[in-house]
C-alpha cells in the first residue's frame, strides 16, 4: 500500500543521516547525530573517580544528563535519561573500570521527530569517541505502525498525527572474520535481539511484530552507515592537538 508522506519519502525511506565525531574540545568524547532536521549533540566525560551514593561500587556507573532545547528539565527529560541510562548500561562493559562514573550529556539542538533514537545513536558514537569499553553498539530507530503498514523514521508531524509509534533499539550487526564467529545467543544471531523498546499509543500485536521486522532491517542499514563513518574518521584523523 502506497503512503503519501509530506516530504515525498516512501514508507521505507529514512531521512538523510549525518554524523560527526570529536567536535568538542574539553569533553573526552563527543559526537553529533542528525536525521533530517532532528539534531542531537552528545558529550562523554569519563571514567571519573567514584560512584554515586546508591550505585554499586564494584561496577562502573553511568550517568546521563539530558538538556532540552529550551525550557526547564521536567518529567519527560527524566524519562529519557532513565531509558538512555538503562540502554547504555546493557551495552557497556561495566566490570572493566569498577568504582568509576561515566557521564553522558545529551543536548537537543533541534527536534523534528525520532528524538530519543537520535540521542541513543549520538550517545553510542560519543562513547566510541571517548574510548569507553563496550560489548557492541546500539542502533535505535523509530517506527510508526498503522493497521498493517509501517512507516520508518517519522517527522514530528507524522509522530503527532499517527495513533501509535515505537522506539526500538537493536544491537548493531557484527562483522566477523571467522564464518561461525558471529555472536549468537541460543542459536539466533545477536542482531535479532532487542535492547530497548518504548511504545506510545495502542497498536495491535501484529503491527508491533511488523515494526520489529522493519526496524531490524533498518538497523542493518544504520549499522553500515555507522561503521562506514567510524572507519572513515579513524583513517583520516590528522588533527593537531
Amino acid at each position, binding site marked *: 500500500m502506497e503512503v503519501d508522506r509530506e*516530504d*515525498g*519519502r*516512501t*514508507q*521505507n*525511506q*529514512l*531521512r*538523510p*543521516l549525518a554524523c560527526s565525531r570529536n*567536535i*568538542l*574540545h*574539553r*569533553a573526552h568524547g*563527543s559526537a553529533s547525530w542528525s536525521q533530517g*532536521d532532528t*539534531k542531537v*549533540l552528545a*558529550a562523554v*566525560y569519563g571514567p*571519573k*573517580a*567514584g560512584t554515586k551514593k546508591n550505585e554499586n561500587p564494584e561496577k562502573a556507573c553511568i550517568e546521563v*544528563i539530558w*538538556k532540552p*532545547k*529550551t*525550557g526547564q528539565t521536567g518529567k519527560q527529560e527524566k524519562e529519557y535519561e532513565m531509558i538512555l541510562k538503562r540502554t547504555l548500561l546493557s551495552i557497556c562493559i561495566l566490570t572493566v573500570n569498577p568504582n568509576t*562514573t561515566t*557521564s553522558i*550529556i545529551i*543536548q537537543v*539542538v*533541534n527536534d*523534528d521527530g525520532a528524538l530519543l533514537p537520535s540521542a541513543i545513536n549520538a550517545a553510542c558514537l560519543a562513547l566510541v569517541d571517548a574510548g569507553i569499553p563496550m560489548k557492541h553498539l546500539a542502533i535505535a530507530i523509530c517506527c510508526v505502525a498503522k493497521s498493517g503498514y509501517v512507516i*520508518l523514521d517519522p517527522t514530528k508531524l507524522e509522530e503527532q498525527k499517527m495513533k501509535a509509534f515505537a522506539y526500538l533499539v537493536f544491537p548493531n550487526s557484527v562483522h566477523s572474520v571467522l564464518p561461525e564467529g558471529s555472536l549468537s545467543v541460543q542459536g539466533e544471531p545477536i542482531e535479532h535481539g532487542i535492547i530497548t523498546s518504548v511504545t506510545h499509543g495502542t497498536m495491535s500485536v501484529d503491527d508491533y511484530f511488523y515494526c520489529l*521486522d*522493519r526496524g531490524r*532491517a*533498518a538497523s542493518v*542499514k544504520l549499522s553500515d*552507515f555507522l561503521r562506514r563513518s567510524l572507519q572513515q574518521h579513524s583513517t583520516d584523523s590528522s588533527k593537531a592537538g
Partner: protein
Amino acid sequence: MEGRLANSWRLTVNDKNFIKTALLSEIRIDGRKPYEYRKIAIKFGREDGSSEVQLGQTHVMGIVTAQLVQPYRDRPKEGILSIYTEFSPMADPSFEPGRPGELAVELGRIIDRGLRESRSVDTESLCVLAGKFVWAIRIDLHILDNGGNLVDAANIAALAALLTFRRPECSLGGEDGQEVIVHPPEIREPLPLTVHHLPIAITFGFFSNESILVIDPTHNEEAVMSGRMTTTVNANGDICAIQKAGGEGVPQRVIMQCLQLATAKAVGITKQIKEAVEVYNTERALRKIKRHPTSTSVNVREKQNQSIGK
C-alpha cells in the same frame, strides 16, 4: 566530596609561569598577539532564532522563543525579555548540572544589562494589547564547550539568534477587539524583531604585571589572570555596560585604553554578525520556494520473501 575535587581541572605551576613569562614578551600560548581576537564562526540552525557561535574553542548555542503573556503591572505597554544561561556539564568537567552557579548568573546578568538597559531590542513593539497581552522573548544560551571567554561568545550567540528570530504575526479580533488571534507561519509571514543596535561584549584579562593586558582570554589564561573586565560597546562608540567585579586594581589610563580597543573590535564583530545574518536571510528566502526534496534518503529493503519496497 573527594570525588568532585579529583575531577576538577588545575593548571600546574609550570604552566602558569610559562604563560606569564611568555606574556612579558607579548607572546600568547596560542600564538596570538595580546590585542588579537580569536576567529569567530557564526552558524544558524534550521529554525528561526537558533544560532551556534564558535570563538576559537569556545562553542555556544543560542535559542530564542516567544510566548504571549501578561505584561508586568508597572510596564503594561512593554514586552518582556528574559535570558536563561545553561552551563551545560558538557562544556567543562567542573560544571555541575542543576542550579546555575555564580559564573552562570554573572554571565546572564552581563548580557541582560547589555541588551535591556541600552534598549537595543525594542520592547514597545512587542506589545499586542496594552495591559493584557505582550510578547515575552526568552533567550536560552547553552554553553557547549568552554575554551575561555564565555561572555563574548554567548553575547554574539544571543545577538545572532535575536536578529534571525521571527515572531508570529497577530491581530486583534473578537466582538470587542479584545481577543488576540495568532496567525500561523503558513498563513502570514512571521515578523522579525526590531533591534536598534548591537551591543558587543569584549572581555579583557589583567595580569599581576600592570602593563600586561590581553583581549579574549582562553581558559588557560583565565586560570592565570588576576583580574578581568567586560565592556559592552556598540559600533557607534556608545558604552552600554562595563563589568569589573573585583580582581586586580587597574589605573584609569588602562581602562581608557581598553575602551578604545573595545570600540575598534566591536565595529569588526558587528560587521561579521550582520554579514552572517544576511547570508541566513537569503538562504531562508530561497527555502521558501518549494523544491522537490533531494533524494539523499536511505532506502531500506524488506526481507526477501516480501515484495521489494522502493
